């Protein structure tokens, strides 16, 4: 279970303070909605460790994540854009998510191939990122998150289930591709037991993902 306990955060030179308090059960998906400026993306950045709260605690299975660097947290994150390094090919982009040095075990390599095939991008290993469509690019990023989550799950004994943080990654896709990608996330949650948090503006996403919705109120 992920617990965000009375977490407070303010951006420098801004008066308003954001306040978050929520729990996300294991093996579930949660959709975070709310008006612009309510702090949806900030919440994910705090969980991921890109931002440091001024107060409160973030716990994963009872253990505090505070003080851990993003790479030491049980997270995989997808952003709205710039998820991939455009100068690297598909395979290298995925492989770097598993090992930043680029070295892969045979098991991980097999897992990448299988996941690519599952998501309909098999055979694109050496394709350059700019030659892919928006949907294909997001699926490459999804494969990286999926494989990273599963490899971490297998090797990091202290971490029970990886956490998938999705910061509006599908908002720019056409409806069909978006539904397809959300289906993949739902499958990742159901089949591999991941816990996913999706930030979105679209209320239909929750239904497609079969997720509860958490509304953030604008900061006072």
């Amino acid at each position, binding site marked *: 279970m992920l617990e965000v306990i009375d977490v407070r955060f303010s951006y420098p030179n801004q008066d308003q303070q954001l306040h978050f308090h929520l729990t996300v059960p294991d093996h579930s998906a949660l959709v975070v909605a709310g008006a612009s400026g309510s702090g949806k993306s900030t919440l994910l950045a705090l969980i991921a*460790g890109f931002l440091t709260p001024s107060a409160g605690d973030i716990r994963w299975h009872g253990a505090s994540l505070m003080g851990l*660097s993003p790479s030491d947290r049980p*997270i995989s*994150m997808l952003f709205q854009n*710039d*998820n991939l390094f455009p100068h690297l090919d598909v395979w290298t982009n995925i492989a*770097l998510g598993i090992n*930043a040095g680029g070295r892969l075990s045979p098991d991980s390599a097999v897992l990448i191939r299988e996941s690519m095939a599952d998501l309909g991008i098999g055979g694109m290993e050496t394709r350059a990122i700019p030659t892919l469509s928006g949907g294909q690019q997001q699926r490459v990023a999804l494969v990286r998150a999926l494989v990273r989550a599963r490899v971490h799950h297998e090797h990091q004994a202290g971490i029970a289930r990886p956490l998938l943080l999705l910061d509006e990654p599908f908002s720019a896709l056409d409806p069909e591709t978006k539904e397809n990608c959300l289906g993949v996330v739902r499958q990742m949650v159901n089949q591999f037991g991941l816990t996913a948090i999706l930030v979105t503006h679209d209320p239909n996403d929750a239904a497609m993902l079969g997720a509860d919705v958490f509304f953030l109120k604008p900061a006072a």
Partner: protein
Amino acid sequence: MLTGLAFVIPTTVAASGLLAIWGRHGVINQGIDQANALLPFVTIPELPSFFGVKAVILAHIFFNAPLMIRVFLPRLLSVPDNHWRLARMMGMTPFQQFHWIEWPAIKPMALPLMGLVFLFCFSSFALVLMLGGGPRVTTLEVEIYAAIRIAFDLDLAVGLTVLQVVIAFAVLGVMMLHPMMRQAMPQAVMPMRPPARFMLASPSPLLRGVDMLVVLGLVVMLVLPLLALMVKGLGGEMIAVMTSTKLWRAMGNSVSIALASALFVTGAAMVSAEWRVLVSLKTTQLGQHKTQIMLILMESSVMVYLILPAIVMGTAWFILLRGVANVFVIAPFLVLMANVMMALPVAYRLLIGKWMTMRHQDERLRLAYGIRGMRGFRYLTIPVMSREIGLIFGMVAAMSMGDLGVIALFASADFETLPWLLFQQAGRYRVDEAAATAVILMLVVVMLFGLGHGLGRWLSLPRSLYRASDMTTHATDHS
């Protein structure tokens, strides 16, 4: 901002600044002398002569390190924030971050920039002349100058000039093949805004410390010579130099040439850019092939001056005109011409990118409403391009003011410029006089650059066709 200094500080001033620290009468040797006077039993040896290869290399680092920073830093800052976040999420080490993110960002510019720096150093004149310390450390340009002014061996000068031109054209060929090379210069000279964020900062305190040390070292390297020069220049001989008629005559010549060059270059760059736009807009009328040829010819003719050193150009003028006119009488005109030709490619490059974008964006609107000629120029072009126009004016004025190139060939007792006067004072070991002249030159250069900045701001002021008086008249008519 400090890195921008290297583009406006004249080479003669920088050389004087370096001498003010490392030279025989520099700050360090003065400190050693004072220490020796205080220490009775120990004698600290003075620094050996600064002139030679090490001085030339240090001076070229002074000018080219900022160029590298100004090209590489925007590229690193253009890496999306999410890529740095991904690096942190993936747990990349600093080396892995360099390998996967930073190097790919700067790689396209690395080779072209090295080529550009090579070109600058290869065609270096004033720094080598002032700091080389004799014939052992020289360049083709210095040899051409020596052949004309000292040995008066015109055959040798022609031979060296031809060699320089051949090399210059070979480099031009490479430059035209590599589009990034053409981008390197405008990126380097455009004003840089300080980064709003510090995503580049290494998370490791040790590496952050190393980064800080390197940055501090560069700041010291850039600022210290200028500070030493100010201290030396504002002391001793400043009043004597300020009251000399020679200085004011040289100043008058330099400022006149600087302002005239700035005016010509700014105008010529705008006309060239507009012409380039018109050719590209008329592609369908001219045909693809013809347009392509015209564009290549035009770009090459503008670019060629970028790689032709002033001395080469001056030698060509000297040889061409000496049979028909007294070159020393028409020296001001020749210096002006050389400055205009050499500044034009940089000015054109600075202007063309944004000019093309602006004109292609609003061409249909201009056509639809018939906003052509001066009206379009005043209300549509100038406000958008004001920053660049001001920058070009200031930069060209500063460059021309500080140039010690063609003037070295044509200077005489009747026609001197401030850099030439400074060079002569330094050559006669009048160190304090040279330092004072260098400070004056530096201040005038900064003022001219500021003038360009002010011009840019003035041009950017909103221009409205609204006149309150028109409304009053209109209302009165109705009543």
